């Protein structure tokens, strides 16, 4: 597994890309969550247990 053409710089760029992707995915979660609240409006609190 040590045979790799990728140097330390490549790995550093990969790490930054991974962080950016994680942020985008986190943002999507927030986007869908808040939109659900907005779309449901006051009905979001109406739950029957």
């Amino acid at each position, binding site marked *: *597994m040590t*045979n790799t053409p*990728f140097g330390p710089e490549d790995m550093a760029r990969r790490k930054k890309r991974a962080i950016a992707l994680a942020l985008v995915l986190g943002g999507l979660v927030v986007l869908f969550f*808040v939109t659900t609240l907005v779309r449901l409006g006051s009905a979001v609190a109406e739950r029957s247990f």
Partner: protein
Amino acid sequence: MSDINAQISETPAASLGGQGSVADYFALLKPRVMSLVIFTAFVGIIAAPGSIHPWLGFVALLAIAVGAGAAGALNMWYDADIDAVMKRTSKRPVPKGTITPQEALGFGMTLAAGSVLVLGLLVNWLAGALLAFTIFFYIAIYTMWLKRLTPQNIVIGGAAGAFPPMVGWVSVTGSIDLGSIALFLIIFTWTPPHFWALALWKKINADYTNAGVPMLPVVAGADETRRQILIYTLILIPVTLLPALIGTVGLFYTLANVGLGAVFLYYAWRVYRLREGAEAEAACKKLFGFSTLWLFIVFALILAERALGLPLFAPVFG
């Protein structure tokens, strides 16, 4: 496994991909084009009759922006051969080698699907479908077909850049109304004089010639291009006033646009009259610069009218 490892280790890293930085991927989105798309789509959202929850308006704008970025990335995937030949575009991530064409394709398709799904699921499906059609039009109709085929490439292809305000409008209303078509027509008729003014620059013209892209100045010559710029400008000025007939704008927009149209016509006339030397080149640069500003001001006027609460005209039709 060891054979595969050995094979990978002998392959140059660049050809394996994974070389692109976050900035390279951001460049794939054509951020300058994206900023204009965001602005015109925002005006579409504000100008549309009715209202949308501010958060949903933000979601719509985000999806439209990402959709525009996806179109940019797919364009850079398909046009990498042309981009490599042209000085203006040779530093883009794909011809530069930092992102492989396959990576650009995957990135663009993911963003395209994601933006359409987000707009469709979270806002409305007509807006989502229109965004999907916009991306399809820009890639399949303009980039893959018309761009390399006909000097009318940017006339028809310009529709792709004209859709964003309509998508914004439809995000609010859920329907394609005359007002949204008027905003579409403004950008549609603005595109030819804007891009042909750029294409007339000597170094840009040389770029297109080297790449074999049949832009109008390359195929029909500079004189014919100057004539077409003037004709499209004469069409553009009345088109700019269409929103007044539909009741999308008021007196402030209309009067300001009469003045702006006159200045646009003046610059187009200078391009038409000055054919040779540095003066002619300068006239093209001035028209290109002014036309960029012109589009921004025209759409900003619509925003200003809404922000100031100025009265709108009663619709003559629509």
